[in-house]
């Protein structure tokens, strides 16, 4: 996206991941000079550009285009290619500014008057303003403005030409929400980055873009928030990407398989999402996101076990509902894993554990079934999996019909034919429904997969087998890591304050700090005083307050300091 370079550093923007990793490490080394603080614009164009480069230079979509203004003055325009309409720049900015003096009569000789001339007579943009402070430029640029800088002029022109091309942005298919944004990523990387920038208008957002894959040269963008993300994490992510040497990257899923910690584990260690809002939330927690040109999925690392049963709804809805629904989801998750195994072991090894009436009812239902319970459950589970796979592959219209035929007709017929007992059908149905309630498809698959060994263990050793299997699964989860973070964080290793967002979701104003296991450089989410306002309101006044805007409670010198 670089047209021309004024500074030698810019050539590095499209370097390989390897070099990026090294330069990032160098930059993050303690004692390395920070970007010099910028004040007013200097007269030298090169100086100004250098300053901008220092602030925004880490972004792959930054474009600095220098040219000769009216054939005479050195000038440059600075913008982020992911946020602007390049057609508009070409037609309405560059075209009127490039011609020599013979084609543009009345151009003032004095450079100080140039800005006003350009705004009044040359460019054809509706919104814009002048700016004398250099440190006001980067925030404007990341919001989608184009900055015009001229050599010898201590003023720059900011033109608002943001055009976020959101054509085709649709509701994500894999992550539906009741309440929350309805937009999902599309295939084009620029659009996806624009969706990110649209939600996260911060100069801290860093987007590193480089090609990956020897033949496809797919552009891969690594996003993080510079002032929050743990440099070690960013460096680790870059390191893992930098050692990928493959033919082609077709989708984000390809990268996932190269960078995950433990490929042999059934559990996903990288989260994928179709939702920009989820990505932004993850970035703000201090995680790192990866986007690939041509893929509507973002990868988020590190990904922990509890992320796979959280959804956007948990946060957009009020906290009591969010917590309740999250617990229900956890129950569904557990039932999708354990239900059939427990059923098999109880029915074939320890029927005395059931209440007597129930046991009689079950054995009555099973009277005509010729197989042992294990076999019966396995047959039903396998056919259910086949049905599920078939329904996904079929067009939606036929899929609906098939599921009705499969579930109702075959289920009923199987019971009548003596292939399965009614209670087995109930169990299998509950299990399947439970597995569909897990928001993350890949995590649901992992649990589905582990259900079968558990059923077999239950068939062989009864409850003891289920117990051993469960311990094996939990041990595996405890051993797993994702980018150096223990997979079961924050349960293990226990950090009580991170528990606020695990099984339950406490009010947003209680979660004052970012998750500690991410080792963020800036861990404060809310200022100290804010939660006190709400807590006072609730605890002392029983939720009723005379003052609808208790802003004065924010005053310093509060007696209760949490």
């Amino acid at each position, binding site marked *: 996206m670089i047209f021309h370079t004024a500074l030698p550093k810019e050539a590095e923007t499209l370097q390989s991941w390897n070099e990026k990793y090294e330069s990032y490490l160098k930059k993050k080394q303690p004692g390395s000079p920070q970007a010099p603080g910028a004040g007013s614009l200097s007269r030298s164009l090169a100086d100004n550009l250098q300053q901008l480069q220092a602030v925004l230079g880490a972004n792959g979509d930054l474009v600095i285009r220098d040219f000769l203004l009216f054939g005479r003055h050195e000038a440059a325009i600075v913008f982020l290619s992911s946020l602007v309409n390049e057609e508009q720049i070409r037609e309405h900015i560059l075209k009127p500014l490039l011609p020599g003096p013979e084609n543009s009569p009345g151009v003032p000789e004095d450079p100080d008057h140039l800005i006003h001339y350009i705004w009044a007579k040359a460019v054809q943009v509706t919104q814009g303003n002048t700016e004398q402070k250099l440190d006001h430029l980067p925030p404007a640029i990341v919001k989608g403005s184009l900055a015009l800088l001229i050599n010898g002029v201590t003023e720059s022109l900011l033109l608002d030409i943001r055009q976020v091309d959101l054509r085709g942005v649709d509701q994500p298919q894999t992550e539906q929400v009741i309440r929350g944004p309805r937009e999902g990523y599309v295939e084009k990387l620029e659009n996806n980055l624009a969706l990110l920038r649209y939600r996260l208008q911060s100069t801290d957002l860093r987007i590193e873009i480089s090609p990956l894959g020897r033949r496809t040269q797919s552009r891969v963008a690594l996003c993080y928030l510079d002032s929050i993300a743990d440099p*070690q994490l960013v460096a680790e992510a870059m390191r893992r990407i930098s050692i990928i040497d493959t033919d082609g990257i077709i989708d984000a899923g390809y990268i996932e398989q190269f960078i995950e910690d433990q490929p042999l584990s059934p559990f996903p260690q990288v989260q994928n999402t179709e939702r920009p809002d989820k990505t932004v939330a993850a970035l703000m927690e201090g995680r790192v996101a990866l986007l690939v040109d041509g893929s509507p999925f973002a990868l988020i690392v590190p990904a922990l076990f509890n992320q796979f049963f959280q959804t956007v709804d948990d946060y957009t809805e009020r906290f009591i509902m969010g917590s309740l629904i999250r617990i229900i989801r956890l129950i569904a998750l557990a039932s999708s894993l354990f239900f059939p195994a427990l059923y098999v072991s109880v029915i074939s090894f*320890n029927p005395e554990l059931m209440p007597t009436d129930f046991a009689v009812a079950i054995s009555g239902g099973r009277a005509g079934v010729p197989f042992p319970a294990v076999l019966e459950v396995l047959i039903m589970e396998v056919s259910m999996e086949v049905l599920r796979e078939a329904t996904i592959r079929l067009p939606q219209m036929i899929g609906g019909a098939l599921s009705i035929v499969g579930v109702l007709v075959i289920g009923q017929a199987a019971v009548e034919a003596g292939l399965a007992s009614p209670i087995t059908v109930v169990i299998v149905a509950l299990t399947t429904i439970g597995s569909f309630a897990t928001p993350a498809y890949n995590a649901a698959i992992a649990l589905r997969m582990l259900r079968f060994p558990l059923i077999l263990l239950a068939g062989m050793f*009864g409850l003891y087998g289920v117990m051993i299997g469960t311990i094996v699964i939990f041990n595996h989860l405890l*051993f797993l890591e994702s980018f150096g973070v*223990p997979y079961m964080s924050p*349960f293990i*290793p226990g950090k009580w304050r991170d528990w606020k967002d695990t099984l339950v979701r406490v009010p947003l104003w209680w979660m004052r700090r970012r998750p500690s296991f991410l080792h963020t450089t800036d861990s404060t989410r809310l200022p100290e005083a804010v939660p006190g306002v709400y807590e006072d309101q609730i605890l002392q006044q029983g939720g009723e307050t005379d003052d609808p805007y208790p802003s004065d409670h924010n005053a310093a010198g509060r007696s209760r300091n949490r």
Partner: protein
Amino acid sequence: MTPTRQITTLRAAAVIGSTIIGVGILSFPRYMAAAGGSSAPLVAFSGVVISIVCFWPLAALCRRFPRESLFVFSRRLIGKPLSFIFALLILLIFVLLTGLTARQFGDVATTVLFKKTPIEATVFLMLLLCQLSSRRNIVKFTYIHFFYLPLIIAPVLLITLISMRNMDLLNLQPILVMPSAAFWKGAVKASFLFQSSFIIVLLVPLMQKPKQAVRAGILAIAVSGIIYLLIVVAAIGLFGSEETKLLIYPTLESARSAAVGEGFLERLDAIFIVLWVISVYTTLYSTYYLASCLLQHVFAFRDQRMSSTLILPLTFIVASLPANVFKTYTWSLALGLASMIILAVYLCLLWSMYLLRRPGKRGAA
């Protein structure tokens, strides 16, 4: 990205606690009742005190060498050959202990709940599980203990408290009796349960605050001691001391008597046994891990992966040796006594050498 010194004091305490609460929980009240009659809780309490007294010098010694495990610094203190012999002896103790505990577990599991599962399969599966998880490093080892601890404590506490509703306080009187020889014997037996707190020697070199090793151990022994005490009180209070002496697994019986509501949760003992598998697993995991680490130390392997595989057949053979339940219990009591003596001798030796050499040490440091 693996920083050293990751084990917090609380996690160290959790490891010791979940190690202590184990297979013995089921038969514990019987021994106490046999030793002290209605003053069984007092016997158990004395046992806890004895084990704290035994634990103290061990942890205090480890605390002085915060960077090395016991077996490393003992080589410096008492010389290579002697420390090698003791390492071998302790290795033997823990192999035997692992095998016998696994066997006890198998006996209970097959007689009470998993009647159709052959005992060999039960024991072997459990040992295999320990072997597989022993291949991981010590930090992950503490994760496992820390994770399972609530699952161990909660059901025991819950069931004990529920069964206490039906308790008859008369059964617990007289609380104070004149300590006799049997009383002290019982107390020593009780302290055997706490011997696996020896696991602290592995933890100290990785603890964030090695100085708190003693505190962690005592916290763990106190918490698990309270749980054991509660179990004894519940069992004696429910059945009386004479009846308790006759029950093989009094804790299980008290769980059986604790029903909540009508027709709902009738069989609390089943849930109890199922969760009890976890507490046995954590206990066996600790002793198994310790045995693997010792074997690794003896053979000077790079890590304990290889030695954990070698331990598997050894422990399985030990577990298959006893002919019946009573042999198992006799043997494990004898083992408890032997290990107590060996550890005491070892500790006395180490402490005396440490005290003798201390001035030199200080100069070196």
